[in-house]
């Protein structure tokens, strides 16, 4: 819940609601990117960005190296799979 997981923004799916499709360790999911959009970095420029996602919300932009290192760390801590499972099994699907 607290660690956050790196994800790359693939496409903007709903600009008004600040929703984007991201790739997290091979899993595609929609997240909210309102917190990383501002005047200097409008939403259409976000595609391709790496971000740190906490419970479905991108809270910061990170560089690709940082994203890779963090993914490796999460895998070593045994948290990567846990996060991906939580995403896939999220009750919303039911």
């Amino acid at each position, binding site marked *: *819940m*607290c*660690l*956050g997981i790196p994800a790359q923004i693939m496409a903007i799916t709903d600009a008004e*609601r600040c929703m984007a499709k991201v790739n997290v360790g091979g899993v595609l999911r929609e*997240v*909210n990117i*309102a*917190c*990383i*959009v*501002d005047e200097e970095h409008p939403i259409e420029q976000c595609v391709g960005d790496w971000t*740190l996602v*906490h*419970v*479905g*919300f991108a*809270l*910061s932009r*990170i*560089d690709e190296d*940082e994203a890779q*290192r*963090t993914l*490796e*760390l999460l895998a*070593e*801590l*045994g*948290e990567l799979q846990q*996060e991906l499972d*939580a*995403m896939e*099994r*999220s*009750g*919303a699907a*039911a």
Partner: protein
Amino acid sequence: MKFVDEFRDNQKAQYLQRAIHELAAQLEPTLSRPLQIMEFCGGHTHTIFRYGIEQMLPKSIEMVHGPGCPVCVLPMGRVDDCVTLAERPEVIFTTFGDAMRVPGSRKSLLQARADGADVRMVYSPMDALTLARKHPEREVVFFALGFETTMPSTALTVLQAEREGIKNFSLFCNHITTAPTIKAVLDEPDLMLDGFLAPGHVAMVIGLQPFEFIARDYHKPLVITGFEPLDILQSLWMVLKQFTENRCVVENQYARVVQPTGNQAGLQAIHNVFETREFFELRGLGSIDHSGVSMRANYTPYDAERKFAMPNLTVTDPKDCQCGAVIKGLIKPWECQIFGKKCNPENPMGALMVSSEGACAAYYNHGYTGKAA
């Protein structure tokens, strides 16, 4: 030293380890007891155990594992409220998976689900909102917990629900705030802490300013720290460096993610939806002034506490639980009389045994029972 091989960059790790030992050697003549440095955040606790960081440190430095695991400080009375809510037939109760096994005085959410309550694990508060859209005939309640790291997400979800006019969605708000919790730890009369590693992801949201009183008023060095093992070693070195130079400030080791002013959009959303509570109870720490937030009056329709009658009882922890003393660093987990016996990860009595980020679970899972460490 056996763990150093596991660092991805073990040259850097060895270099940092040497640098830490050098600074500690300079400090040792001035010390009458080991320096105690608290890592506040459960995420850090996890990394410290995984990489055996304590074993790399000189005897003159002790790590104290702080209360920064939101699941671990959830009081029993709050879990009971969750269960009561979840048992209402019209309610779909949604929560992060971490909270499912926290014991209440009657049962945990997991047991409530086994007994027929509609409890669903979600990955994101947004998924709970999706459920509310799908099931207009039900009341979807999201169990909002966490420090400032998860607050933007719940605040933005409420704002979205309002925008769409969704009426069957509400938050059971149990968010807690970092700085007042650290202050409560600092105000303990028998406290011996000398410095802090502060949570990087909280700082990513709130910035550096809320931590400044700790250096200014309590004269404790504090370093905002990332989550890699090397981050933790580097931050420890930065804390020691402050001691050797007689400085006491807030420093940012995690500058690659943390902006000094935090995340403006996130802070704005938090400010719009939440306001500070006068006090909030944390398990093991008791009632702490201003340590929690509740929802502002204009979001009453989205506030489960106002929408549903809630028992809101304060329930005392079982007598032999010593979570409070562990959280404050007064005893080590294995010194709790029921550690590993009546209280273990399979059957947790205290919350510190529930989450992998809790100090007791970390000690237990890594086989520290007092002798080895």
